[in-house]
């Protein structure tokens, strides 16, 4: 009883105390803090249906022939009539900027910790991830706000930058990452390596050579040289094509395959937070999935037959029906489905019908086949025609696609004797098929200004304005420095 009345004499404190939460004041001071912060770079980009673990990046590149969706929230991308209010757009925008700011906090605070290899590795990862974030942002949205540690505190007022300034930061970040990152981490690590930085930089140069900067042959040369470092240069032998194309898509092989240069991956054990969801979202409903998106009939028809096609598509469903007989969710005519993400490993196998919603799968951001094709395209462009190295790079991908040993020339599969234009077209086609459903084709179409040619007769009212997506309407209204893209 007396205790009750004596409570007040302790006198409650009006200072805000949050015993269970971290505050900014005490963090980013030690190597341990930086290590934890390095993990924080990736979480915004994968897990919780928030970014690359789910449909968003795939449907937002649905303007390519590879991806189609009838779902009300996704179909506008496929039909090149995206809306500024789209939840897909605002979700990816948020994820990318969250990751950028987490990177900025590392980059701006590294000097709090004495220099060491560990510190460099954290900084290298931060610079790689920031470059990757901006690379996606500017390819989707064009001019956006360039936020660094220096202007982070008044980020809302920052005026959007020219695309060239954004690429300047991307290039400088990747160049530093090349220096700071090791050739490899542990066997099961998915951290970006030196190879990832170089590979991504070659893709950045390739993109800078085309639309919208159109920097042309000089940058094709830079792209070729950077790609060459992984093929025949300092990192030669680290990456190679996986012998069987189908093995690439086995989730249990995500750490052991030799082709992945940078991936995001999930684990199901932690619920939705760290799980991948492509295996369920891309599975047809008849196979127990959601059928959020699928492919287009025109793409299936154009796709050359072979083991690669077999591993890329799901054409007969588990109940034995053919894709063309079924209806897609939403009721449209049947469509071919992708097979690439069906097998996340763990508890969900390729042919299982009832798979858990949360998977151990992955999303490939950069793999060696991409680098080979970057080399082939860039070399042809830089040199005005295909040289031996360009042919070999392209043909290696073609041989593997046909189920052959990539390193052994095969007259039946290998291309030769092509003109500059023929070779260029062949590489772009090969990229379309090889990298289908990996959020690649759309970016190829815009950088090579092929959107009208490919989609002009397929969708209504295709214009140059469709090259960029609308920026999220709410973000444009919140930031004076952000201007909506033309046509939206």
């Amino acid at each position, binding site marked *: *009883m007396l205790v*009750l*009345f004596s*409570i*007040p004499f302790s006198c*409650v404190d*009006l200072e*805000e*105390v*949050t*015993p*269970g*939460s971290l505050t*900014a004041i005490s*963090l980013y001071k030690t190597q341990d803090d930086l290590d*934890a*912060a*390095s*993990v*924080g*770079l*990736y979480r915004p980009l*994968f897990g919780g249906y928030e970014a690359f673990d789910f449909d968003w990046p795939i449907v937002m590149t649905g303007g390519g022939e590879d991806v189609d969706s009838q779902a*009300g*929230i996704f179909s506008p991308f496929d039909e090149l009539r995206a*809306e500024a209010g789209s*939840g897909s757009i605002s979700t990816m925008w948020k994820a990318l*900027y*969250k990751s*950028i700011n*987490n990177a*900025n*906090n590392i980059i701006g605070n590294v000097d709090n910790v004495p220099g060491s290899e560990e510190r460099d590795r954290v900084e290298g990862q931060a610079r790689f991830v920031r470059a990757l974030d901006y690379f996606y942002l500017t390819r989707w949205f064009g001019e956006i706000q360039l*936020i660094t540690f220096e202007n982070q505190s008044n*980020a809302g007022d*920052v005026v959007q930058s020219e695309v060239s300034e954004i690429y300047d930061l991307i290039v400088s970040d990747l160049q530093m990452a090349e220096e700071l990152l090791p050739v490899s981490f542990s066997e*099961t*690590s*998915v*951290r970006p390596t030196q190879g990832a930085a170089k590979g991504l930089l070659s893709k950045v140069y390739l993109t800078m050579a085309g639309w919208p900067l159109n920097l042309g042959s000089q940058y094709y040369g830079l792209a070729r040289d950077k790609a060459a470092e992984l093929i025949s240069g300092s990192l030669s032998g680290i990456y190679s094509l996986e012998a069987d194309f189908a093995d690439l898509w086995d989730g249990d092989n995500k750490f052991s395959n030799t082709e992945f240069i940078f991936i995001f991956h*999930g*684990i*199901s*054990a*932690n619920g939705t*937070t*760290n799980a991948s969801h492509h295996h369920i979202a891309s599975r047809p*409903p*008849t196979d*127990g999935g959601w059928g959020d998106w699928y492919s287009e009939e025109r793409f299936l028809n154009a796709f050359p037959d072979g083991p690669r096609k077999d591993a890329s598509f799901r054409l007969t469903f588990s109940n034995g029906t053919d894709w063309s007989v079924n209806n897609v969710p*939403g*009721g*449209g005519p049947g469509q071919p489905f992708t097979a690439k993400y069906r097998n996340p490993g763990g508890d969900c196998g390729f042919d299982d019908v*009832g798979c*858990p*919603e949360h998977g151990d799968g992955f999303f490939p951001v950069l793999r060696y086949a991409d680098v080979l094709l970057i080399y082939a395209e860039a070399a042809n462009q830089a040199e005005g025609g295909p040289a031996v190295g360009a042919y070999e790079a392209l043909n290696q991908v073609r041989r593997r696609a046909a189920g052959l040993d990539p390193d052994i020339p095969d007259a039946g599969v290998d291309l030769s004797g092509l003109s500059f234009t023929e070779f260029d077209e062949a590489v772009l086609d090969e990229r379309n098929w090889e990298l289908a459903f990996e959020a690649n084709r759309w970016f190829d179409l815009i950088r090579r200004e092929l959107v009208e040619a490919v989609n002009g007769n397929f969708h209504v009212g295709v214009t140059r304005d469709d090259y960029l997506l609308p920026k*999220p309407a*709410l*973000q444009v209204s*919140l930031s004076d420095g952000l201007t909506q893209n033309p046509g939206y």
Partner: protein
Amino acid sequence: MKSILLILKIMVPKLLMFISLIGCFKAASQTFVSGTIYDDTGEALIGATIQVKGTTEGTVSDYEGKFILQAQPEDVLVISFIGFVTQEIRVGQQAQITVTMLSDIEALEEIVVVGYGTQRKRDVTGAVASLKPKDIQSLPVSRTDRALQGRIAGVNIQNDNAAPNSETRIRIRGSNSLLGNNNPLIVIDGFQDGRLNMVHADDIASIEVLKDASSLAIYGSKGANGAVLITTKSGTKKEKGLKFTYSNYFARHEIRNKLDILNAAQYAKRQNQDAAELGGIQPFTEAEITSFAANGGTDWQDEIFTEAWAINHHISLNGSGERINYFLSGDFLDQDGIVLGSEFRRYAIRANMGYELTEKLKLDLNSHISKTEDSPVTLNTFSGENSGSPINSALLWSPTDPVFTDKANREYTLPGYDTDVGPLTDYNPVALAAEPIRDFNQLSSLINANLSYKLLEGLSVNIRGAIRLIDEENNEFINNRPTQIENSETASIQNSRNVFTQTSYLINYTNEFGGAHSLNFTGLYEEQFGEFNSSWMGARGFISDAVSYNNLGLGQDQFPLSSDRTRRSLRSYMTRINYVFRGKYLFTFTSRWDGSSVFGENNKWAFFPSGALGWNVGNEPFIQDNLDFISLFKIRVSYGLTGSQAIPPGGSIGLIGDDFTYPLDGNIVSPGIGLADRASNPNLKWETTEQFNAGVDMELLAGRFNVTADYYVKKTRDLLFERPVPEATGSSTQFVNVGAMQNKGIELYIEGTPVDKEVNWTTGLTFARNRNEVLELIDGNEELPIGSVGFPGFDNFIWVQVGQPIGQFRGAQFAGIWQAGEAGEAALYGAIPGSPKGVDVNGDTVINQDDVVILGNSQPDFAYGWNNNIRYRNFDLNVFIQGVRGIRKLNLSQLQLLRGTGKDLLDRWTPTNTNTDVPSRIGEATYGIPNSDRYIEDASYLRVKNISLGYSFPEELLSGLGLETARIYISAYNVFTITDYTGYDPESTNSDKDFNSGVDLATFPEQKIYTIGLNVTF
């Protein structure tokens, strides 16, 4: 009351002499009877009226309580006095009669609990409504919150979901806050963190609802949403010795309204027709359809809804000793939910003790302990694999599928059983209801002690110390029977503890001086402290269901642990002055200062003043002389500020997110940190509500008719808003104080006893109209999308707009179906005949966000209640009608039915069936406009909330059994409803946020309840 006594003291002796003299001149043949009248404390009762029944003979007791009058032995004396129960005594042979008068419970209503004290009703200047306990207890519900529905004008109670342990939405005078809390403050015996569902209705002595600023400003930053003050019973001094009460009821709950769904044969035909339309394979053969027609299929609603029984027992004993009084009670409730697998049990004990330690020192110790065991079924979610909503699934599942493939081994049919129809991603409704084990156990204890010391006449101090502990253990074991996915069993345990302490130091001074002045001063210093901590652990993949959630170590994958701890504290000063001049002019001034830990660094202290004036017009001579049927006529005006500090702990400071985990180095999760979604704001503060109130109280014919009317205007500014900040900052939102909202309304309460003969009929009518209006939004915005419907395709469906009430729906307008003759026009919209047609507002041949219009809002126009008690001899009848008008709801169960098994699907558009609102299969699927007004419905309703009939056994029968009173009753609750709403219930909603309260995702449906019960005292 005191003044009446004073008058009586002076007048009575004179009258007595006069009456006695008259008596002396009466005929000498009469017998004289004399006696003494005492009140229940043993004091002589002066001025009681003693009358010979059926005659005009009478007298009043003198200053010693004595009386004398002439009566025959067969006469009956009727003894009455204001505030006491009238008694009838047969004269018989006794010459000397001693009568002890008992205080009338009704008389207690003259005193009103006003927070930190009590006041005479006559002197109250604020808008305070009292509820008589007998009104609540006539309802067969053990939950006080449900019992309050429709009883008090301006208090709107909505049964959002009707699971046995669900929360109700209580709103006093509308919603003040957009994102903050709109729940009223619940004060139980002075303790400020009460919960209504933890007080048994039979333990309540009085309920007061404070509605205006003058009565609420004393609660400062916790007062903006109104307050419900509950006073629990204490031991009475009526009799020395014990008094027991026992009550119980048995109730049968059944679903109020099942939705219309297809039977198996209809469904199979429908699927075949759909398939024919789409050009696919026919899922069912004619033979199968014939067989379904003959043998039926599965009615999934019948499978998951059951009739449920509730049993409630309540026992109490109360009494008093020399210096002690006590009220002890215990109750037990066992209630099954009408959805398979849901159950709720509660055991509670209350001990209210009062000790007079010395003449001047008094201790009151109220304690309450309860244990609850809740087994809910998860609802309001759509997917969730093994733990999805059974109700949602029941609207989608094919009636052609059986429940089990092997009943003995509890093997359920899976999605797509036998055919590819029915949902493929929602699981068996029966499995979802019956299989998950959820045991949510709560132990709650409250000790609330008050020590009062009388320093001098009129001057007293009080110290209240209270501590409340809630321990919760939420256990779940979700097996994999619904999905049959290997290793998908999950088990988890969440432990949490919620401690709240309150200490109040109160000084009170009362004096009456100069004959005309009455003054009351209250001063307060108070501290409140709350701490919440919780921990969660879970695992997945169990080889056996045998251990349930009791051995998480057996799980293959351990989920990462999580735990948290938050604190909040509040320090306050308060003063209140009540001044009454000549009993006619009333003044109240209050002020409160609150300092709170959750306020931002730059805004630690808040000030809340209020003032009120009252004028007892009825006490003016021009009323008293000319209109003597008016016994009370009071005009009240008040104005003041109250606040809401519904800021979560840590809301003002920038936190670092610790949930940035990622499997960076293999198949294990690495811990990570990053910017939290919410940015800091050191200026964060309370929401301020400024309220003006004008009201009238009138009592006619000595209280036989009462009318109370109030008009109020509330403006809430500095609304707590989670403002979106540019994502470029790395954060998404920030708590800020911007914007304003207004609630304006009228309330009317009429109560009376129109018939008071052999049949006694009392009736009470409440009416309240509240108009909510958003006055200002952040950054000068005129409108903003807010919240989420929780259903794909309904992005930006709910808005707030300046000048409009919250909860506004916006979407396209559904204009029926494109007909065959309109094919050309339909094609412009990419549609075909059979597709739903939208209204193309801007005529650009695209239905998109430019065609969105306002589709109404979810705020009611007005609410009303009509309560009737009729007594005839030993019978009593209660009829309670209650309703709401002008409320609109988004009925998503209708949408689910049209995707699943709704009977409306029989009426699909075809080239030959054109007069319909249901699109063709292809039309619906390919060209659907989900975010339209197609599913918005008027959810106004009028319902007979309760009818109960009671019978009290006659005394002569009971005395032989040693009983004092005994009553049995039967009742029907929600027995009759008039509404156009086609969902489960017009009151249902899913969201705890008021702007989202118009969204109904097929929640736990409201029920009809049939009850039989018994009340006994002895």
